[in-house]
Structure formats: C-alpha cells, structure tokens
C-alpha cells in the first residue's frame, strides 16, 4: 500500500481501490459514537413510545447523516488535512482513496439517510437531519472554519442536533427540553475544542486554520474556555431549574458541571511553560467527553427512574 509523507498526499494517484475500512474511517466513527449516543438519549428521554424498529432506523439515519457529512468534510479539507500530523494519514491525504470517491460516498450516505428518515420515521426528523448535514458540511466546513476563529462556536451547532432528532422521532415535535439539550452540546463544544486546540495549535497554525489560539493567542482562548464553561454550567442546570428533569439529573449536573468549571478555571487562569506537557488542558479535554456521555446518560436514567416512581 502506498504511504505518503505529510503534505504530499492529496495529489497522489491511487495505488489500489480504496479498502472498505477506509470508507468506514471516512465517517469518523469516534465522533459518530457521541452523535449516536446523544441521539439515542434524546429518543429515550422523550415522552411517549416508539416502535424499536423505527427507533433503530432513526438512530441509524442519524449515524449515516453524521458519517456522510464527515465524509464531505474530509473531501473538502483533504489539502488542509495533508498539512497536519493528526490528520495526514486519513484516507484521502494518505493516498489510499480517490477524492471523488469520498465526495460520492458522502453525498450518497447523506441522501440515503434523509430519504430513510423521512419515509420510515417522519419528515420533521429528516428536515432537522438535513439542516445538521448542511450546517456541518457547508456552514462549518466550507464557510466558517477557514474564515473565523469563532468557527467552533457557531459550528458547534452541527453536532448539537442529534438529541433534537431523537426527541422528534418519538414525539413528532420539538419542545423546550430538546432545545436545552441542543444548547448543552452547543455550549460544551467551544471549551471542548479549544482545550484540544491549545495542545495541537502548532498543527492548526501550519494548516492556516484560524483557530482561536492561533489568531488571538492562548491567553484569550483560556479566558474564553472559562467563560463558556460558566454558560455551560447554567445551561446544564436549566432542565432541573425549569422542572423538566428530576433530582438525579439536577444533582449530577451540579457535580459534573461544577467539576467541569473547576477544570476550566485551572485552564483559564494559568500560563503554560515550555515543558509542562499541557496536562490541565488534556485533562479538561478528556473530561469533557466523559462529561457529555454522563450528562446525557443520567438524563435518561432520571427520566426512567422518575417514571417508575423511584425518585
């Protein structure tokens, strides 16, 4: 199999037809895990019932839509990916896949997810899924990411749709709680990605992506992480404060968001030294993933335990 070095890959001709594993990695399976999980939690936390087969199709379509938009993202960003060590071995910059194949795969997967969602679940879900694919592939990838250091803030909306879709699959509408779940992911995204960008910022700088640490410096980025963590704390508490979630969720949100805020304070008000390994930033990044999984999982647990009369 042809191997290419960083910055060389995009123009390389194919040595072999792309392997199916390369198509799979084009969908960013790691990201899909979180998307599927939050979508499933939105579906499970919604009032009412859905047939398991229809629910499965809804989650499958969310995963397919996310995978399709990730493929479109990698198709568009192949040149940039080739310049960054973290992404240089992806299928297109790695020279293992034709760029057109990625485009066709992304469009095909996205279109199939929308048609299936509309026919088998409902057209509101299909419309929200279409919006999320457009948001990620066009608004974030093509428009925002190369132009503004606020790319992550506004683009974070792209990953925030799954719980709304899951909810709408059951109820056929969108009420305040799924909007708050959208807001939870929306305000979680900036501190999550900026923590990452603090310890991979040299890569972003080399690729010319205007991430906040590259454009405004690390001090501004650290303050922004802290400020968004305060908004995240308030957003996480809102479902309990508005009586849309029970005490288990409320107590968990208080503890987990408090810990998130404490880690963000540490990151927000320190100055890194050359050899400190960026441990607090890496810790915040790792915890932020754990945080989101737990928050959504506990919301579902709270919903069922309250329903069963155990809380």
């Amino acid at each position: 199999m042809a191997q290419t070095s960083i910055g060389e890959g995009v123009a390389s001709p194919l040595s072999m037809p792309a392997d199916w594993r390369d198509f799979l990695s084009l969908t960013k399976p790691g990201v899909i895990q979180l998307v599927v999980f939050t979508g499933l939690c939105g579906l499970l936390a919604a009032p009412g019932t859905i047939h398991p087969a229809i629910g499965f199709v809804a989650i499958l379509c969310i995963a397919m839509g996310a995978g399709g938009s990730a493929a479109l993202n990698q198709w568009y960003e192949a040149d940039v990916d080739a310049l960054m060590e973290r992404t240089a071995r992806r299928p297109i910059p790695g020279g293992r896949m034709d760029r057109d194949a990625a485009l066709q795969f992304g469009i095909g997967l996205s279109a199939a997810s929308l048609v299936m969602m509309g026919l088998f679940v409902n057209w509101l879900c299909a419309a929200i899924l279409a919006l999320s694919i457009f948001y990620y592939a066009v608004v974030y990838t093509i428009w925002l990411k190369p132009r503004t250091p606020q790319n992550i803030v506004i683009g974070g909306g792209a990953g925030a749709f799954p719980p709304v879709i899951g909810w709408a699959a059951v109820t056929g509408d969108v009420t305040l709680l799924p909007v708050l779940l959208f807001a939870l992911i929306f305000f979680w995204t900036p501190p999550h990605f900026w923590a990452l960008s603090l310890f991979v910022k040299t890569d972003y700088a080399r690729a010319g992506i205007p991430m906040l640490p590259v454009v405004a410096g690390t001090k501004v980025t650290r303050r922004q992480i802290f400020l968004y963590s305060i908004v995240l704390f308030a957003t996480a508490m809102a479902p309990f404060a508005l009586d849309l979630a029970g005490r288990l969720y409320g107590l968990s949100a208080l503890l987990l968001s408090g810990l998130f805020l404490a880690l963000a304070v540490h990151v927000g008000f320190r100055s890194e030294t050359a050899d400190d390994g960026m441990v607090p930033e890496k810790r915040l990044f790792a915890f932020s993933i754990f945080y989101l999984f737990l928050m959504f999982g506990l919301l579902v647990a709270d919903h069922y335990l309250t329903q069963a009369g155990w809380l």
Partner: protein
Amino acid sequence: MKDQPDFSDPEMLRQLRARQRSRAIAMAAILGGMCVLFYVVTVVKMGLAS
C-alpha cells in the same frame, strides 16, 4: 507523483483481488442488511397503520 501500480506483478494482482473481494463482501453485507431492515420496517409500518 507515484507511478500507477504494476498489476502484472502477481503480488500486486493478488492484493488487488483481495481488496476487491473484501469490498464486495462488505457491499453484500450492507445490501443484505438493508433488505432485512426495509422488510422489517415495512411490516412494522403496516402493523402500525392498521
């Protein structure tokens, strides 16, 4: 720029065939899964409608 692979080389040809076979199996699995899924969901939707 790299040269196109030489598929007259038996080893390269073997790798090509293996790649094509694995892609065909993956595609067959996906299509088979979709057939089952569409069948099940159609039956469920008909049941819900009635």
